């Protein structure tokens, strides 16, 4: 949320280092590449050329310690740090900011009204308050409706609200929303960050994105919908649009 080391690096924006392979990975890469290169000399035609090319790429990968593919697809360091701190096998960390043309106190008060979340948070069916003050969520994930308990873990005036699933939840997730005055009286900035343990790892995370029920996509759209509700009193929708062919 806040600047890291004085750099403007909100969560979810930090990239893995370019040189991202450990000594063991580099050695294995060089060996595998060399073996592949040696085998390539025994092949004829395009297969040999392809194997030779792949082998030399692997050797280069090992010598330089740089793997662009791993950098693109693997966990980022801030995600690894979140996973480590939370005791998760891996973490997906996403952030999004939106500016709302309304005073901070009002924006915070409306945002803090959990009963109203289903109005603007598309995949939240309901949030009820349990007897012990914790929150009972009914949300939609790619498999359908799921229920889980969460709680407010941090709250400062009208500047910060953090929510997390309770310990041992089947859907480990934390969300943190910071509320700042936008410069020059231009309303309120909400800086949201959501971290969760992707069930089934990163592949399932991409599958969830396809169904649009992925917390990162939700964060992005929900903040916009919340903004629209605050600014205009309603949320823009485009249906019914007559897209179903009628004879």
């Amino acid at each position, binding site marked *: 949320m806040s600047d890291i080391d004085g750099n403007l690096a909100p969560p979810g924006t930090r990239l893995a280092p370019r040189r991202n392979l450990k000594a063991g990975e580099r050695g294995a890469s060089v060996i595998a590449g060399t073996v592949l290169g040696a085998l390539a000399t025994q092949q004829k035609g395009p297969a040999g050329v392809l194997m030779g090319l792949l082998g030399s790429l692997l050797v280069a990968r090992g010598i330089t310690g740089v793997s662009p593919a791993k950098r693109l697809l693997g966990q980022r360091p801030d995600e690894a740090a979140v996973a480590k701190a939370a005791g998760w096998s891996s973490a997906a960390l996403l952030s999004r900011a939106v*500016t709302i*043309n309304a005073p901070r106190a009002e924006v915070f008060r409306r945002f803090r009204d959990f009963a109203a979340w289903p109005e603007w948070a598309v995949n939240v069916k309901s949030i009820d308050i349990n007897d012990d003050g914790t929150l009972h969520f009914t949300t939609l994930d790619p498999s359908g409706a799921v229920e889980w308990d969460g709680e407010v873990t941090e709250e400062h005036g009208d500047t910060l609200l953090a929510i997390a699933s309770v310990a041992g939840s089947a859907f480990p997730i934390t969300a943190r929303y910071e509320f700042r005055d936008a410069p020059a009286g*231009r*309303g309120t900035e909400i800086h949201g960050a959501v971290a969760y343990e992707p069930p089934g790892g990163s592949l399932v995370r991409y599958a969830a994105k396809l169904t*649009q029920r992925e917390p990162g*996509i939700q964060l*992005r*759209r*929900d903040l*916009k*919908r919340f*903004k*629209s509700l605050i*600014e*205009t*009193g*309603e*949320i*823009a*929708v*485009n*249906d*019914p*649009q*007559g*897209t*179903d*062919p*009628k*004879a």
Partner: protein
Amino acid sequence: MRAVRWHGKKDVRVDNVPDPEIVNPRDAIIRVTSTAICGSDLHLYDGMIPSMQAGDILGHEFMGEVVALGKGVTNLRIGDRVVVPFTIACGQCFFCEKTLTSLCDNSNPADNQDIAEAMMGHSPSGLFGYSHMLGGYAGGQAELVRVPFADTGCFKVPAHLTDDQVLFLSDILPTGWMAAENAEIEKGDTVAVWGAGPVGQFAIRSAFLLGAERVIAIDHRPGRLALAAEAGAETIDFEDVDVMAALAETTGGNGPDRCIDAVGMEAHGLAIDNIQDRAKQAIGIGTDRPHVLRQAIVACRKGGTISMPGVYGGLLDNLPMGAFVNKGLTLKTGQTHVHRYMQPLLERIEAGDIKPDVIISHRLSLSEAPGAYDDFLNKQDEFTKVVMQP
């Protein structure tokens, strides 16, 4: 109700669809009395605009009578006769407060904003009947249309003005006006306008009203050039005349002070760069044909302004950026902030400064829409502007 729907490239049909309903408190339902086909609808017809879906209702130039209102609309009544801006705007966001209504933050639904953001970084306002990237809203070439944020959008018009006189307040008249305003015309300027279609026609007339000394219209349709000449423009038919040479000569070697590109992404003409762009389009590695923009940059006088009301959809290449920078040019563009211009332009119409109906060439019924699209595309000299009565 009956509505004109897009089913694919060069496939427009009149279909029966369910009537629209009030969905949000600030909605209105309008019974359409007049609706026009816009030049930018031809970009949809040609399949040039991404994120269209088969079955989308077209049309963004329309007016009519209020037949239903959401409970949040207090400034309109059933029976009001209104013109509706093609840009949908909430009226309350940062951009609307600055009257940059085509950049409204809230009128494009959040899911649709994702598509726009992926392509453009940020989402502009939602539009009627103009792709899902820009809202996915049903358009106004229909008997009925739902107008979101109707309290901001519906503009009441006086009874003594006919539909033909006020319909174009919805898009092309403000678009032509903003094109001239964006050109930063100073008294005595010479303004070159590429494209003598409806927007070009209004840009020509607006340029004179804003102080242009000379306006030069460039097109290849004699009928359209004649209409430009009626407004006092000098004309260049690019099929007969070398545009660049003619512009340089007629301005004493300086070039036009202000250049308006009222053509956009589908430039015509047999030029090497245009052929190259067409080839790229054909094999799917190019989207737009910015022949006019390239020409305007090179033709424009040093320190001049290029105003670009023409629609561009994707990526442009081979732009003469060196010329643009070294000649110190300014480029101004954007979808029209229609809401900003409706009242002042209504007053211009009432005063007789602008006669919008001069561009209407055909009045048809809604059921004739498929043929009208085809004719508007292929018989541009004859079909300047089609207005349909549902």
